[in-house]
C-alpha cells in the first residue's frame, strides 16, 4: 500500500462533519500555520515541497504564490478552482463530497500564506450537492472559530465564500473564472496582465485547483521536505487520479507519483486491469485535453523504459510519442473502442465549450467536429485526414487561452497514432458503421510513428 495523504481518512464514517474530521487530526495545519509560522514561512514550506499545480498545467504552486504582487492598500485574493469539467476528471468532486473540510482547511492555510482576507471557492454550477456540502462545512468551521474574525485568537481574519459557477467548461480557465466570479460573461482575459498582478477586481489573485489547495494541509503538517520525499524527481507527493474507461475498478485513486503505469493499470490496488478480459488499445492519461497514446507507447516510452505516473515520464517523448499528466483524468480504451468515434466525441465537447472570442478556436473547433462526424459516419474522404491535421495546427498556439490547444491536441494525436483507423473509416464506410476497426492490432508493439507532415 502506498501512502495516502489526502484520502487517508476517507473511509472514516462521518468524516464529512467537522467533529469527526477534527478528531482525526483535522485543522492541525491551521493551528500550526497561524500560531507558529509566518505567512512567508508557509510559502517557503510549499516551495520546498515541490508541489505542482493539480489543475492541469503543473506549475509549481510555491513559485506561483511567491509571484503574487503585494502592493500597499490593495486586497489580495485566493480563488479555489473547483469548476472541474474536463471529460475524464472527477477527483475534485470526490474530494469535496467526502472530505470537504480538507479543502476548507487548505483554503485557510493558503489564504493566510497569501495574506488574503476574502477567499472564494468557485464550484462548477452543476455540482449543487457539493455546493451545499461546502457551505455546511464552512458554517461548521466558522462556528468552531476557524473562520471569521480573529481566527484562533491570532488576529487573522478570513471570510470564505462558495460561488456557483457559470455552467461552462471555459469558466475553469483561470481568467475566465475571475471574469465569471465578477459577475461577467466567462470569457478568458488576454494575458498579460496575469492574475498574480491584476486578477479579481483588478487585485492580485492566486487561482489554484482544489487538489493543490488540499495538498497544502499535509505539507504543513509534515513539513515540505517530508512531502518532497514522496514521488520521483520533480514530481513530488501524491496525486489523485480519476480512472475511468474499460477497467475493472473505475474510481478515484491516490497514488504516489512515480508508480509505473503498468502497476497502476493492472494491479488490484488500483484499476485492476482491463475489464472483461479484453486487451488495452489506448490510454488518455490526463483528461480529454492531452494526447491519446496507443497501448505500446503508453506502457513503455519509445526508448523502451517503463513509463511512470509522473509529470516527466508521461510527457517523455514530447508530443510525438508522449502525452501529459494534465489533470489526472485517466481513460483506458479496450480493443473494442473506436478511436475515430472517441476523437469526434472529444471535439464535439470542445466545439460546444469554446467561448467564441477568438477566431481560430471559435471556427476551427466546429470545423473539426463536422469533419470528424463525417468520417465517423462513413461519408469521409481521405483528404479529410490531412485537413484535420492542418486545421488543428492552425488553432494550436494561435488562441487567447489554452482551450484552443486542448481542442487541437487530441485530434492531432489520434491521427498521429491511429491514422490507419481513420483511413479505414474512409475506405470501408459500410463496415465502419457496423463494427470497429482492427481489433487486436494495437495490443501488439508497434514501431513509433513519426509526426505527420
Amino acid at each position, binding site marked *: 500500500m502506498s501512502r495516502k495523504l489526502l484520502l487517508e481518512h476517507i473511509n472514516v464514517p462521518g468524516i464529512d462533519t467537522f467533529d469527526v474530521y477534527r478528531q482525526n487530526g483535522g485543522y492541525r495545519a491551521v493551528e500550526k500555520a497561524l500560531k507558529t509560522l509566518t505567512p512567508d514561512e508557509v510559502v517557503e514550506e510549499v516551495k520546498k515541497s515541490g508541489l505542482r499545480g493539480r489543475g492541469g498545467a503543473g506549475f509549481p504552486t510555491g513559485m506561483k504564490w511567491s509571484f503574487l504582487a503585494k502592493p500597499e492598500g490593495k486586497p489580495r485574493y485566493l480563488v479555489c478552482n473547483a469548476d472541474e469539467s474536463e471529460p475524464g476528471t472527477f477527483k475534485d468532486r470526490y474530494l469535496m463530497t467526502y472530505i470537504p473540510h480538507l479543502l476548507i482547511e487548505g483554503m485557510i492555510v493558503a489564504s493566510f500564506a497569501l495574506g488574503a482576507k476574502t477567499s472564494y471557492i468557485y464550484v462548477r454550477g452543476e455540482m449543487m450537492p457539493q455546493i451545499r456540502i461546502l457551505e455546511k462545512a464552512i458554517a461548521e468551521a466558522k462556528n468552531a472559530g476557524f473562520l471569521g474574525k480573529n481566527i484562533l485568537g491570532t488576529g487573522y481574519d478570513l471570510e470564505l465564500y462558495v460561488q456557483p459557477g457559470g455552467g*461552462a467548461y*471555459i469558466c475553469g480557465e483561470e481568467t475566465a473564472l475571475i471574469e465569471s466570479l465578477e459577475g461577467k*460573461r466567462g470569457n478568458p482575459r*488576454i494575458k498579460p496582465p496575469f492574475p498574480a498582478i491584476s486578477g479579481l477586481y483588478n487585485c492580485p489573485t492566486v487561482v489554484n485547483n482544489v487538489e493543490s489547495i488540499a495538498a497544502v494541509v499535509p505539507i504543513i503538517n509534515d513539513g515540505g521536505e517530508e512531502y518532497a520525499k514522496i514521488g520521483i524527481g520533480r514530481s513530488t507527493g501524491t496525486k489523485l487520479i480519476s480512472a475511468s474507461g474499460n477497467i475493472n475498478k473505475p474510481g478515484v485513486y491516490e497514488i504516489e507519483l512515480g508508480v509505473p503505469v503498468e502497476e497502476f493499470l493492472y494491479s488490484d490496488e488500483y484499476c485492476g486491469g482491463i475489464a472483461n478480459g479484453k486487451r488495452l488499445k489506448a490510454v488518455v492519461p490526463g483528461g480529454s485535453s492531452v494526447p491519446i497514446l496507443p497501448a505500446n507507447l503508453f506502457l513503455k516510452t519509445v526508448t523502451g523504459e517503463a513509463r511512470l505516473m509522473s509529470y516527466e515520464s508521461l510527457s517523455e517523448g514530447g508530443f510525438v510519442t508522449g502525452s501529459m499528466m494534465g489533470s489526472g483524468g485517466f481513460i483506458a480504451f479496450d480493443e473494442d473502442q473506436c478511436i475515430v468515434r472517441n476523437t469526434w466525441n472529444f471535439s464535439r465537447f470542445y*466545439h*460546444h*465549450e*469554446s*467561448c*467564441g*472570442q*477568438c*477566431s*481560430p478556436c*471559435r*471556427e*476551427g*473547433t*466546429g*470545423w473539426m467536429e*463536422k469533419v470528424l462526424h463525417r468520417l465517423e459516419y462513413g461519408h469521409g474522404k481521405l483528404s479529410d485526414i490531412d*485537413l484535420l491535421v492542418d486545421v488543428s*495546427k*492552425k*488553432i494550436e*498556439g*494561435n*488562441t*487567447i487561452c489554452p482551450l484552443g490547444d486542448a481542442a487541437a491536441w487530441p485530434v492531432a494525436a489520434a491521427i498521429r497514432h491511429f491514422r490507419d483507423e481513420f483511413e479505414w473509416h474512409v475506405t470501408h464506410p459500410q463496415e465502419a458503421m457496423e463494427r470497429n476497426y482492427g481489433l487486436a492490432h494495437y495490443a501488439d508493439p508497434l514501431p513509433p510513428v513519426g509526426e505527420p507532415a
Partner: protein
Amino acid sequence: MSDKIKVSIDGITVEVEPGTTILNAARQIGGEIVPPAMCYYSKLEGSGGKCRTCLVKVSKGSEKDPRPMPKLVASCRTGVMDGMEVQNITSPEVLEARRGVVEMLLINHPLDCPICDQAGECHLQDLSYEHGLADTRYEFERRTFEKIDIGDKIQLHMTRCILCYRCVFVADQLTDSREHGILGRGDASEISTYIEKAVDNDFSGNMIDVCPVGALTDKTFRFKNRVWFTKPVEAHRDCPTCSGKVTLWYKGEEVLRVTGRKDQYGEVQEFICNTCRFETKNTSDWIIEGPRHVSQQSVISANHYEMKPLPVIKKNLELQEANKEQFERATKF
C-alpha cells in the same frame, strides 16, 4: 517624460514611447509591415486580442531578456520592450498562421459581397484578397441568422459578423447598463441587444463605423449604391453634440451617407452623433472642406492612381524578397 524605447519590426527600427503596443509601433513605421487588425480599435478601450489576424513573432524579447517568445503574439495587445525584435511579413510562420486565421474567419462568412453594403470598404474583403485561398475547404452549411433591427436606423446582419466585439465596446463606452452584448458561446455566439431593444444613445450610429464587415449597416443607406460609385468629401458643421467633422458620400448632387472620418486603418478620428449621421443629408447643412484623400487599401481608390512606395531596406534581403512577392501578388489582379 520617460525615455523612448527601441524596437525593430521586420528589420526596421523605430523609437516609441514606453507602453506602446507592437501594432502601434508598426503603424508608426507604416507600409507593408503593419499587421492587419480586425478587432483592435485604438479608440475603444479593451478592444483587440480576439481576431488573431495581427499575430506576429517576437524573435527577441528585449535587450535584457533576449529569449524569443514561445508563441506568436497578438501585436495589438503586446507591449514593446527595449530592444525587442519582431517579425511580421518576414516570418513564414506568421504568414502561415495569418492565412489560417483568415480562412477561419471566412468559413462561416456568407461571402455575399455582391449584395453587401460594406463591399468595397470591408476589411475582411481586403484581408482575404491578400491572404485567402482561392477555394474554400469548408464543405458544410454556413451558419445563418435572421436580420435584426437595432433601433430604426441600424440593422444587424449577424450572419456576416466576425465577432470582433468592437460594437460591444462602443456600447459599453456609451451606456452604463449593458444593452448590447454577446449571447451564446462558441460559433453559436451572436451579437444581440437586450430583447432587441434599441441602443438609445446619441452616438449609437458609431457602431456602424467601427464594424469591420457588413454586419452593422446604416439603414438610411442600405442598397442605395456601391461605395466605389460614391465620392467622399470632407465636411463639417457646427454641431452641439459632437465635433461635427464628417465624411459625406456623394452620388451626383445627393448625399447618400454620412460617416466619421476614417484613417488609413479604418478607424474614425472622432465619433459623430446620430443627428449628423442620419438627419443632416443636405449639402446646405454642411461646410465643405474638399475631396477626401482615399486610402489605397480600399477599392474606392479604383479610379485614383496613387501608389505608396514599398519600404525597402537595402541590407535586408529577406524583406526585399517579401516585398517582391507582395508586389507580384498585388499586380497579379
